[in-house]
């Protein structure tokens, strides 16, 4: 039954504790080392054991931009999951399961699906009782079915376990090879995947790319409190700390997290924090403090399903207005939202440069889908520079006296050259209270209205300088289209896929993806939207936050909205259905 396909979708389903994430990562790397593009998404819950967990890897010869829909191969780790997922397997696909443990009910697996029943007990008996070895058996078999060379799988396993976990490596190599050999007896399906063992793309999650971006940017201090879906930034930075020289501090709460980072930034190092909406709420007051004291700091907020504790392990894009409105008062700040894994990397480098050049807090909005999905990268942009902004040239000959140095000097750009403790000739006091150019507080005893006004204008002038530094939004695709799809953040790939699929059917669509939320390219966005025939926003939230922001900034009313807030990411199919409906 030949299936000439240029891509393959593999889903592994089981419960928390089954080692699904590790299996998925191994398979993703195997695909990548075979020259395929990879995209993987892990659907899980807030439990350590049990629950319904599935991870889907999609690999293809050309760039894949979502985890896809129809499953070609299912690895079912228990009977319950087999029942839940069997029907998602496409015609001509296959299901792999442990025949000692999983007994498919008659008729559950359709006749057009190949069954691969693996005698896991026989295969693993010699190698200990670790139940997770059943995943490795299945992986070995799957690699054989897909006609990938076994040496690719053994190579990934060797690199994963390394020389430190020798026994585990040996067991995994042996059972994967046994699974591979057992599969030789299987009827194969023909996936026309042109493999190329010489191309190896790095495979990483959005969070890993954000963390790697911090390394690139010369970040020296990262503080966080554990919170899904930002925790893996903390984990990766902590694990690599001695290699990167980044000091990683888990603090008692998110209030401490951001105040610590502001302290470290005030003392002269590049500082970053990471959290999700709940932790971001606790940080709010300190974000204003960074704005008022003109302390550069980068804040990652990876959104999850809200409100309150909401859906801790599910995706959503409902914290845009939280980021825009964080903290009391008006103050300069930047809010930007990367859309792909490689964009995560570049966005952190950019965020640090903007933060330091303009001495403002920069909020980087991710979401669970972007933060946690794995993607192969065509190449990370390493052509960047570190721009630390203007430093004061201290008069080192003078005796240090406070208020001699004008830390908040009035300048045309609004940016005052900064300094930090330990430097001679620039002693000053940063203050949460309103202050004058020499950092004297003007809020107590006597409120100097004129100074307050001038200082306010100085700070806010920075916003006018920031906007021209940000790349203006542009339409992707043909200029004259029947419909323009508009999105932000992680929906980028799904929108691209929907546009391209429908394009092949003859529809003319284009795509506007907005990255910079504050300051906002109001003029450019308005011009683009006014040139569009019809408009549709695609967002993972209830109230259409991007549509509302666009209306607020430009006065333009987006005509149609596709909103999803069930916790799962969009599938290109859902976007396609909506587009057909709108275009009718």
């Amino acid at each position, binding site marked *: 039954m030949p299936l000439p396909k240029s891509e393959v979708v593999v889903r592994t389903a089981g419960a928390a504790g089954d080692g699904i994430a590790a299996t998925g990562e191994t398979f993703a*790397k195997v695909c990548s*080392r075979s020259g395929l593009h990879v995209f993987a998404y892990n659907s899980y819950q807030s439990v350590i054991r049990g629950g319904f967990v599935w991870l889907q890897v999609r690999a293809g010869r050309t760039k894949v931009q979502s985890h896809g829909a129809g499953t070609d191969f299912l690895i079912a780790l228990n009977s319950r999951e087999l029942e839940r997922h069997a029907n998602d397997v496409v015609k001509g696909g296959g299901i792999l399961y442990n025949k000692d443990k999983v007994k498919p009910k008659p008729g559950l697996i359709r006749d057009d699906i190949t069954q691969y029943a693996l005698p896991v007990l026989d295969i693993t008996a010699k190698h200990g009782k670790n139940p997770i070895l059943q995943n490795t058996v299945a992986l070995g078999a799957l690699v054989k079915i897909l006609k990938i060379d076994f040496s690719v799988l053994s190579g990934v396993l060797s690199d994963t376990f390394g020389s430190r976990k020798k026994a585990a490596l040996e067991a995994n190599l042996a059972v994967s090879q046994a699974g591979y050999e057992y599969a030789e007896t299987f009827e194969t399906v023909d996936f026309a995947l042109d493999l190329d063992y010489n191309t190896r*793309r*790095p*495979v990483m999650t959005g969070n*890993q790319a954000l963390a*790697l971006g911090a390394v*690139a940017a*010369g970040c*020296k*201090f990262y503080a966080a409190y554990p919170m899904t879906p930002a925790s893996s930034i903390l984990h990766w930075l902590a694990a690599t*700390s*001695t*290699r990167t*020289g980044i*000091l990683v*501090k888990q*603090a*008692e709460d998110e*209030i*401490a*997290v951001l*105040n*610590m*980072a*502001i*302290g*470290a*930034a*005030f*003392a*002269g*190092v*590049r*500082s970053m924090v990471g959290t999700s909406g709940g932790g971001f709420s606790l940080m709010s*007051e*300190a974000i204003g*403090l960074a704005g008022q004291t003109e302390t550069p700091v980068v804040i990652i907020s990876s959104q999850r399903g809200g409100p309150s504790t909401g859906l801790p392990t599910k995706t959503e894009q409902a914290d845009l207005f939280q980021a825009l409105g964080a903290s009391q008062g008006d103050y300069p700040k930047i809010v930007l939202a990367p859309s792909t894994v490689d964009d995560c990397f570049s966005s952190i480098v950019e965020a640090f440069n903007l933060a330091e050049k303009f001495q403002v807090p920069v909020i980087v909005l991710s979401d669970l889908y972007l933060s946690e999905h794995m993607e192969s990268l065509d190449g*990370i942009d*390493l052509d960047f520079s*570190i721009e630390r902004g203007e430093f004061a040239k201290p008069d080192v000959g003078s005796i*240090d*006296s*406070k*208020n001699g140095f004008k830390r908040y000097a009035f300048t045309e750009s609004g940016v005052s050259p900064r300094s*930090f*403790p*330990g*430097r*001679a*000739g620039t*002693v*000053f*006091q*940063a*203050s*949460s209270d309103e202050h004058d150019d020499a950092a*004297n*507080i003007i809020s*107590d005893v006597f409120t100097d209205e004129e100074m307050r006004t001038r200082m306010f204008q100085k700070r806010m002038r920075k916003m006018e300088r920031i906007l021209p530094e940000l790349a203006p939004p542009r339409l992707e695709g043909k200029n004259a289209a029947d419909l323009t799809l508009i999105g932000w953040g992680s929906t980028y790939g799904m929108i691209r896929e929907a546009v391209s699929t429908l394009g092949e059917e003859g529809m003319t669509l284009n795509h506007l993806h907005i990255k910079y939320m504050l300051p906002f390219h109001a003029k450019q966005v308005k011009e683009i939207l006014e040139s569009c025939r019809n408009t549709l926003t695609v967002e993972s939230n209830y109230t259409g936050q991007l549509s509302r922001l666009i209306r607020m900034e430009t006065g333009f009313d987006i005509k149609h909205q596709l909103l999803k807030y069930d916790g799962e990411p969009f599938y290109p199919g859902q976007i396609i259905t909506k587009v057909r409906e709108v275009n009718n």
Partner: protein
Amino acid sequence: MEIALYKVEAKATWCPGCGDFAVLRALQIALASLELNPKDVVIVSGIGCSSNLPGFLNSYGFHGLHGRAVPVASGIKLANHDLNVIIAGGDGDGYGIGLGHFIHAMRRNLDITYVVMNNQVYGLTTGQAAPTSEKGMLTKSTPQGVLEGPVNPIALALVSGATFVARGFSGDADHLAKLTEDGIKHKGFSLIDIMSPCVTYNRQNTYQWFRERVYRLEEDNHDVLNMDQALKRSREWEDRIPLGIFYKDTKPTYESGEQVLKDMPLVHQPIDRTVELVKELIQDFT
């Protein structure tokens, strides 16, 4: 060094007679005596009458949010552990809204000195109950008297792992200056809780009230290395109030255990070779 070096033109804005003047003076004397250059000293504060102190002293300063001086100071120390970091603030700031940070900072044991001007009332907001106000005290927010018992900062510090725990009194200036100097010199987290009377809103715990009760631990056969004795003394209040060092310990500081700080402070570490580092780390992902 001259005390004048640590003075600024700005006049302290506290009420005449406020205990905080003595604390400011004690800090200036201690810094001069330790010959610390103002450029290497950072005073961090939150919000409250006493938190205005950094503005009245010549050194780097960070006057942050209410209750959040401790984490800001921790971040500064982690970024540059060559700096002398001192936190100055009030009891509401440190033992009320900022209590969580206070406890975690002590178990963390960074080399920071925390000077708390404890007046047992909220002054800047015009006289509400503080977490240190005595039970039954009449304040604007408790016209029928405070119903909660007060926080015992000394006992809390002892059980939370602070490695230098002391109490001072604004009415005993020389003793306070010496305590402050000892606290700054101590390697580790030092708490100096200073009874610093509010002459405007606390008519109960006045200079006179304290003078009738205070005594010096060092003159009363107290062993500063003995935790049990320190805990016992920390519970004395009604009739006799101990001043001086309750407890001292020589545990390693947080910064001495942090691998990343082994060679030099974070702020001096170069960041010009990050592309090579990223290229190396990317190998882990392929």
